[in-house]
């Protein structure tokens, strides 16, 4: 009886082929090196956050803190109104994310699935605003909110979100909505649904992944947002965490690096956790639009 030899294609890496093996080893080495370079700043931040003030300033630097100063964390969080900042940030992030998802999805629906006069021109304008640097509008926006008496409130950080101010997400959702067959809308309309019902009861439930992408990307952006809080919030009770982190720099007795790093870790943990648990959504966002947020 004859055994059938599996056919090897020329391009399949054969283990005995030394040059191929070497090449693969090189690839892994390069990838590993890159990964180490990416991870080192994080690892160093964790390491510093667990050092005593004396050990922070040892040279050459040591990686493993001895003793491990866990107390840096409670100290960092209590040396500043950190809890308050966290609540502020959560409020701003949650409300503005809701506003963005609600307004951008509705607008995207209008652009993707309804015909109305001026639609294509409006869409071009919308695309143009994606390229527009925020700095061109920041001064007049500041003046507008100042006139309204909104400085030192969260309104400047929240209200624009309800008006689809971040055109990128309209674009993202529109691209997604376009992939849903239009026949579905027609069928729903035959059953007597109006445009808003089609949007609310059919398109939105079918678009949960895209909505999740939007919510996650926007929440991440908002959590990290710096310039707008810097301009609109000047009472330290009203700070968001991103803005408050700066208070650790250059206090009277210089920068408390160990506390600052501890605070930075606390600030980054939600981002990293969300990223690892919802990676596929982040990656999908990149794939749908071809742009990173």
């Amino acid at each position, binding site marked *: 009886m004859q055994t059938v030899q599996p056919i090897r294609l020329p*391009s399949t890496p054969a283990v005995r082929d030394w040059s191929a093996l070497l090449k*693969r080893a090189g*690839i892994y080495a390069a*990838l590993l090196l890159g*990964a180490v370079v*990416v991870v*080192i*700043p994080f690892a160093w931040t964790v390491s*510093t956050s667990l050092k005593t003030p004396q050990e922070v*300033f040892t*040279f050459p*630097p040591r990686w493993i803190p001895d003793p491990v100063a866990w107390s840096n964390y409670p100290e960092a969080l209590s040396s500043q109104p950190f809890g308050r900042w966290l609540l502020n940030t959560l409020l701003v992030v949650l409300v503005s994310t809701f506003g963005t998802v609600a307004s951008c999805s509705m*607008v995207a629906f*209008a*652009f993707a699935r*309804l*015909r*109305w006069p001026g*639609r294509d021109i*409006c869409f071009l304008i*919308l695309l143009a*605003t994606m*390229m*527009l*640097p925020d*700095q*061109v*509008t920041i*001064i*007049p*926006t500041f003046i*507008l909110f100042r006139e309204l008496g909104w400085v030192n409130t969260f309104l400047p950080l929240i209200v*624009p979100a*309800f*008006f*689809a*101010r971040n055109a990128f997400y*309209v674009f993202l959702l529109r691209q997604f909505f376009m992939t849903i067959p239009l026949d579905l809308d027609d069928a729903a309309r035959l059953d007597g649904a*109006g*445009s*808003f019902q089609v*949007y609310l009861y059919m398109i939105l439930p079918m678009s949960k992944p895209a909505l999740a992408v939007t919510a996650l990307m926007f929440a*991440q952006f908002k*959590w*990290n947002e*710096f*310039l707008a809080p810097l301009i609109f919030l000047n009472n330290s009770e009203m700070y968001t965490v991103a803005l408050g*982190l*700066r208070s650790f*720099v250059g206090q009277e007795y210089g920068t408390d690096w160990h506390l*600052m*790093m501890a605070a930075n870790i606390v600030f*980054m943990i939600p*981002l990293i956790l969300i*990223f690892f648990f919802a990676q596929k959504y*982040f990656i999908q966002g*990149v*794939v749908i*639009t071809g*742009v990173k947020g």
Partner: protein
Amino acid sequence: MQSSPPRAFSLFHRSRPRQRAQHYRRSEAIAGLLMASPWMIGFLVFVAGPMIYSLYLSMTRWDLFTPPQWIGLDNFTTLLTDDPTFFQALKITTIYAFIGVPLQVGLGLVLATLLNQKIRFLSLFRSIYYLPSVIGGISVAIMFRWIFGTQFGLINGMLSGLGIQGPSWLGDPSWVMVSFVLMSLWGSGASMLIYLGALQSIPTELYEAADVDGAGTLAKFFRITIPMMTPVIFFNMVMGIIHALQEFVLPFVMTSGGPADASLFLVLYLYRNAFQFFQMGYASAIAWLLFIYILLLTLLVVRSSSAWVYYEGSVRGR
């Protein structure tokens, strides 16, 4: 649509038959306008209105407290002829964008090519490389401010282990921009995801044909991979440069623009004028120059793109 030349952005779905497109169904048109109205209001109130107001402000002198004073184009002439600090900021920002972003793109491409081999732990590598773009500028600034420290910084610590005395990364005017560019490379993994997706959509027949012709790895990379990727590379390069020209948090937190304005980015200079010196008119003029700069740059790159960006016959680029 079919006969139109390939474009960088094939965003408009095929129009419906013309006779229908001309006559909007009344209820649908009303619904469309209503549902798009949040964006329209937002655009008028938060974008168009402020832009016009900002243009007006740029022609005034205004300290926020006394009424604005009309001075015509004085702010612009001062900026362009009599403000060395502005030129310093322009220079620094341009260097950062035009050196940093191409390097990021290159590194992102290399990473994507490596990850595109059949390797293990693909998703782990992918997550790690993407990580820097999940955390925001403020965290990055804090981490690297510490890492770049002259005396107790990690990099100089490691260098001294090799017997090298490291420079004052953030304190030396000739090193500070090098530090910023290096730091921006740390985040190049983000675009890697996009390139990885693009790489996987290159038809394998092209590589097979090249194999038959006896092409080597490098030849395949430069003759097939790169040309097929140009639309994606191009788009990300433009977006990256636009983004880099607006950098603010990193210099603000790490160096405050110093030493000796060596890392004074344009937006930082804008911020200083507006919110520290309260020269709202002057700051608005800077904002407009930045806007014009970005606009011209985008136009220039888009127009020159036909010389080097390769689009397939079909309209499917991004």
